[in-house]
C-alpha cells in the first residue's frame, strides 16, 4: 500500500473532507490513464461539492474537459 493509499484511508476514517479533496486530486494527477485520472477526479469533485469547497469549480471544469461531467 502506498503512502497515498494509507493517507486516503485515514482521511475516510476521520471524515476529513479537505484531506480527501487534496489526496484524490493528487491521485488523479499521478494516474497513468485518463480513465484512472477521471475516477480520482470524480472523488475529489464529489467531496468538494459536499464540503462546499472552492476546489469544486476547478475539478468540475477538468471533468467537463474530458467529457465526464455535465
Amino acid at each position, binding site marked *: 500500500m502506498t503512502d497515498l493509499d494509507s493517507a486516503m484511508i485515514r482521511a475516510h476514517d476521520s471524515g476529513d473532507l479537505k484531506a480527501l479533496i487534496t489526496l484524490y486530486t493528487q491521485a488523479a494527477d499521478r494516474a497513468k490513464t*485518463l*480513465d*484512472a*485520472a*477521471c*475516477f480520482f*477526479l*470524480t*472523488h475529489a*469533485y*464529489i467531496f*468538494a*461539492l*459536499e*464540503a*462546499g*469547497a472552492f476546489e*469544486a469549480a476547478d475539478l468540475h471544469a477538468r*471533468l467537463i474537459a474530458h467529457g*465526464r*461531467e*455535465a
Partner: protein
Amino acid sequence: MPALTDLSNVRTSVDQANGLPNAHYIDPGVFEEEKHALLFSQWAGLAVGADVPEPGDAKPIEFLGMPLLLLRDKDGQVRVFQNICRHRGMILVEEPRKIEGAIRCPYHSWCYSTKGALVSTPHVGGPGHNTHESIKRDDLGLTEIRSHIWRDVVWINVSGDAPAFEVAMADLIARWREFDLPVYHGGADSRFTLEVKTNWKLAVENYCESYHLPWVHPGLNSYSRLEDHYHIEKPGAYSGQGTMVYRQLTNETGAKFPDFAEVGAKWNEQAEYVAAYPNVLLGVHRDHAFAIILEPKGPERTVEHIHLYYAVPNADGGLRLRNTQLWKTVFEEDIFVVEGMQRGRHATYFDGGRFSPVMDSPTHCFHAWVADRVEAHRAMARAAE
C-alpha cells in the same frame, strides 16, 4: 369494502350527536385511514422554521412513518423533501446537521443542492464517467413536499392537492390579521416536548374547549373564570376558545414582555387559542404567542412540540423562563385528561359520548370536520374501486 366505522351520528347537530367512535382512537386501520384523510390531504403542521435557523441547516423528521428532510436552503428558504436519494431510496441525512455544500448520499454519492437539484451522479456511466443519457438530472431532483410557513410553523400538504394554504387558512389568517407580524422564537428555553399516551385528536379536543378549565386548571379561576371565555368555531377549518381577561406576566420589578407593535386595543385583555385542523394548536396574546405541533406517533401515542414566540428577538430571559414554566404547568395539567380519555376508548360499550350543547360545540365542530373528511376519503376510495 364496508366502512370501518359508522359516522352518521357524528355529523348531526351538537345536541343530538355522539362523538367519534372508539375505533378512531385505538384502531390501527382507522389510524391509517385518517393518516390520509386528515393529515396527508390537508395542511398539517410538521415543524417550525426555528428548527433550521441558518441556511444549510438540515433536520430529518419522520412524519407518520414518512422520512422527510426539513432544510433551509442557501438563500434562506425553508423546504421539505423526501429524505431519500432518487437512485436507490437510501436515507440521505440521519441526524440534524449543517449542509456545507451539497447533500451527498452516503451510498453511491449522488449529490443534491440544498434546493433539491441533482448536481452530480458519480460513475453513473461507468468508472470516471459521471453522466449517462438515460439519467436526466433535471428529472431526478429530490422530491419536494408542498410546504408553507405561517407563524413560523412549517405546514405541509403531502398529497399535494389541497387548496393553496392562503385559501385553506384564509379565515384564520383574517381573524388574526392584527398579529400578522414577525414572531421571534424564544430559543432553547422556549421549546419543550411532552410525550403523551393518547391519540392526537384528543389533544385537539381538549385544547379547543374551555369547559374543563375550572376543573383541570383551578389556578386560572382567580382571574379567568369560565364566563370570561367564548367559543371560536369555523366549521371545516378550526375551532377553539378565547378569553376576555388575559393578564400579562410580570417579574419582580413589574417588567413585562413588549407588545406586538400596533396589535390594537382589542387585544389588551383578549387572547385566543385555536386548533387549526388537523394538528396545530395556536395561541395569541398581545405580548407572546405559541404553537404546538401534535406529532401522531401511533393510534395511542402523540408527541406535543411546544414553541413560544415573542414580539422582539432576545426577549427578557428571566421572563421567558417564567412564561415557559407557566405554560408547561398548564399543558402538563392536561395530560391526565387526554390519557384518561384515551384509556376510556377501550371501553367496548362507549358510544362516543354526548356533548353539552352549550359548552362542547368547538369539540363537536372538530368531530364534524373529522367525519366529513373521512367520509369524503371513503367516497373517493369507493369511486376508485
